[in-house]
């Protein structure tokens, strides 16, 4: 069977997988001589967060990115171009945004990224099957910028990609199933490639950008900026789901769909 169908099979059996996850993680911690992970995993266990919950959280972010890039590059919304948005939870509307005039280089980059983000939505929806959340309400102009110039577009795009990278990086260790982990890792690595490009475009365009929160490492040209969203140990920035929602929640006026909210 193909990969998407295999993932969907795994996702469709949440109850037994939840029990399996508890036993594996707890067993692993016990074998590790009682060294506790950060509080995040304990909370996750207590709530019985599943791989499907994590993928659905990511799907909310992918809906947002796909919508942003599709509107910015074509003026159309993802539902208009054949990307599914229905699922569990209420299917919301997307407001705001407009097509942006981009130069040749930024325009080509944007079109490549748009393709990737639409594919991420399709992939996660296929993997989750009937468990996939619907696209929530999205307000693309929640921060008041993004669509009036190339500079605004690059500024907002940079923020979205770095936020997404930190979400995948922060969630990696919570995923139980190896195939789902592989999929999430490959999506996260794509977002980091996007972010690497956008951070270079931001500095090449001489843009100073605002930080989204206290964890943000700004690109060059901005205070304390550097090329890569990486700390002094060479490790990329990570955020918990709560931190991601605090930084980007304004784009979801009715909140995100799914368990992790």
């Amino acid at each position: 069977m193909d990969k998407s169908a295999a993932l969907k099979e795994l996702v469709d059996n949440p109850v037994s997988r939840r029990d399996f996850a508890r036993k594996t993680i707890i067993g692993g911690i016990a074998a590790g001589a009682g060294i506790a992970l950060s509080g995040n995993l304990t909370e996750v266990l207590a709530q019985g967060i599943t791989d499907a919950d994590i993928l659905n959280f990511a799907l909310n972010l992918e809906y947002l990115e796909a919508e942003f890039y599709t509107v910015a590059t074509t003026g159309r919304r993802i539902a208009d171009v054949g990307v599914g948005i229905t699922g569990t939870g209420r299917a919301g509307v997307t407001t705001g945004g407009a097509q942006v005039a981009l130069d040749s280089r930024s325009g080509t980059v944007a079109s490549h990224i748009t393709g990737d983000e639409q594919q991420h939505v399709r992939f996660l929806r296929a993997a989750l099957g009937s468990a996939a959340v619907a696209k929530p309400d999205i307000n693309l102009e929640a921060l008041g910028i993004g669509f009036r110039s190339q500079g605004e577009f690059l500024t907002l795009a940079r923020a979205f990609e770095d936020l997404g990278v930190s979400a995948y990086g922060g969630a990696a260790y919570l995923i139980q199933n190896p195939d789902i982990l592989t999929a999430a890792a490959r999506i996260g690595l794509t977002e980091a490639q996007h972010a690497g490009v956008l951070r270079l475009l931001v500095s090449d365009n001489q843009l100073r950008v605002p930080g989204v929160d206290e964890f943000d490492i700004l690109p060059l040209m901005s205070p304390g900026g550097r090329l890569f969203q990486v700390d002094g140990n060479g490790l990329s920035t990570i955020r918990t789901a709560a931190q991601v929602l605090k930084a980007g929640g304004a784009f979801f006026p009715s909140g995100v769909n799914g368990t992790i909210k």
Partner: protein
Amino acid sequence: MDQHSDFLARVENLVSRRTFAKLAGVGSAGLMIGGAGAARAQAITDVDILNFALNLEYAEAEFYTVITQGRTIDQLGIGISGVGTPGPTVGGSRLNLTGVLRGVSEELANDERQHVLFLRQALGSAAIAKPALNFAVAGITNQASYLNIARILEDVGVSAYGGAAPLISDKGILGAAARIALTEAYHAGNLRLQAAQAGIPGGAVDSIDVVNKYFTTDAQGLSKTRTTSQVLGLVFLNATPGTTAGGLFPQGVNGTIRTV
């Protein structure tokens, strides 16, 4: 305990458990693999995977440090001793880089040196030594040829970490490996854009390589991955199964995962 110290503690604990397992005569947990011609199956541990990555990080850190400073990482005080066969670095020399690539290369060099330091500290006495490295095979004569090789190295790193992610058992180690991998992907995105702008020619270096668009994604938007065999086949410049040395690593890599 902060996340950094927590990670180190978990890896150090794993190292001592592995030693205990060997003494007690039991196999360590992990994925069973059967290498070509191997007399018995070997169990791959998280330590094995981190050491495999450390070979690549040594190569990247050394490469960028030689190119940007004309020095080797041990000359900068970074430890290179450890388990396995140590070796010298030959080939490559300082380039007087200009433009955006200069600042990028300095930041790349710094990140990769940090990766070496991080992995060595986490692995402790289980860390492999830096193997012999040969940069002469890269044929770098100018900025463009350097950018081409750097692009390939970062892409190899991204694909290697992506391929290894599901093999890692310990969640603390997985979390740290994910952050190193994502850093390599940031690097790759940047270099791929520069390579595209510079019109760097050249076809794909293997069947996994992507050269016709900005990102190393397949039709589903997923970053491509390589198995350890595919990674070694590329860096050895010899994809024949059973190969254990060549190309960038004239005496092979150190650690358990060493064969195409």
